[in-house]
């Protein structure tokens, strides 16, 4: 892919009750934001395992966003508080290992904050664009897949076919 056309690939793990609903609201309100982010819905921000993030990086993500309910607004009362502690450590750890803090971002977005959702996605996309492709990890990925083909590898052909149809 040539550099100018490069678009970051971003994964967002969002909780079902607040952020996902906030994203719905952004949609209903026809707010616009870049299409780079794909969302994975989980029940609570407390249920997102750090390995999910590593997996996302392994699958070529350039950035990850984690989003849940505001403190004290958690559908499950406390899931987001546990998440907050967990991410504090994981974020520091990634930073120490040499992964820019901007690659992994966090937010609290409530069900009524459609505007904030659109803003956050735009900001994260902008930030990740500024950081550029996550070549460090992607290099490891390509080296790895050269030895151990993954399910996704075969799918490249499929995706190319899709490209043709489109």
């Amino acid at each position: 892919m040539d550099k100018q056309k490069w678009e970051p690939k971003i994964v967002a793990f969002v909780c079902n009750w607040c952020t996902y609903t906030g994203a719905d609201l952004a949609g209903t309100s026809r707010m616009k934001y870049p299409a780079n982010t794909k969302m994975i819905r989980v029940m609570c921000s407390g249920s997102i395992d750090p390995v999910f993030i590593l997996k996302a990086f392994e699958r070529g993500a350039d950035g990850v966003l984690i989003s849940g309910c505001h403190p004290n607004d958690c559908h499950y009362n406390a899931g987001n508080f546990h998440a907050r502690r967990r991410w504090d450590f994981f974020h520091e750890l990634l930073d120490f290992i040499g992964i820019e803090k901007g690659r992994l971002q966090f937010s609290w977005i409530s069900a009524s904050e459609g505007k904030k959702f659109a803003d956050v996605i735009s900001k994260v996309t902008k930030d990740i664009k500024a950081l550029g492709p996550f070549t460090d990890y992607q290099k490891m990925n390509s080296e790895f897949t050269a030895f151990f083909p993954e399910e996704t590898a075969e799918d490249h052909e499929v995706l190319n076919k899709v490209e043709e149809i489109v």
Partner: protein
Amino acid sequence: MKDLREHTRELLEKGEIAAVIGYRQVSEMRTKPVIVTDPADAEHLVFNEYCLNNLAVYLTKARIKALCRTKDKTLKLAITAKPCDVHSIVALIQENQIHRKDIHIISFNCHGVVKDFGCEFNGDNLASKCITCETHKPLYFDKIFGEEKETPKASDQALARIQELESMTHKERFEFFKGEFDRCIKCYACRAVCPLCYCQRCITDKAIPRWIESSSHQRGNFSWNIVRAFHLSARCTGCGECERACPADIPLTLLNRRMAIEAKRSFSYVSGRSLETPTLVGSFNEKDSDELFM
């Protein structure tokens, strides 16, 4: 030393304990762990600056636990533990791996151990965890031996290393760790010696779905080392056994120490120091910093 042997022999003879997990001298500057079940063997037990192993790791082993189970009652397990090893024991108790009532902690006033077998005990050869150690007297024990002695002075190179790394750019740090992790052969020695890696089945052994690539390719190595450090963050008591056991000399304590610094800085928490404080993982405070979140 005599006291230690007599004490354990007595306990074993009385039948109060099933076994003693202790150290035995194998050469002048080397010890190895030993499980004593026969009172007669108590005479092999030693404690000195060469007792490097963190014996707490054995407390969770099923075969050793099995020693304690008799038909009618559960016997205690005695363990000789350095004050720093007691931290691990505290963490294990907090994580429900052992019960305080089931163990008999024999500890010592400690003034440090050497960094490796065969080194003479002095300031240059002090194990890095001993340089910053603040608990020369165990926090929890049932029996204590030894006199209080001065710890030799040495400079905290590990901290300096962390600071040096932090002053680097992300790119440089990434390359640094890439270089280090590159040597990992996924032997899991770090996991085997860690008292807190007690899971019967480690996450890395889970195949459906595959959590961590098991080949020793760089990508899997990254995942493994990140996950290992993350699982130990706010839990690791800093015994340093992982790094000592690592055949590839990967500086694992850098990561552990960095996470411990984070626990202390953001939550004023040090793992394994108190049975009364709730563990940092598994608890929360509404007033925790919200800085990370947009």
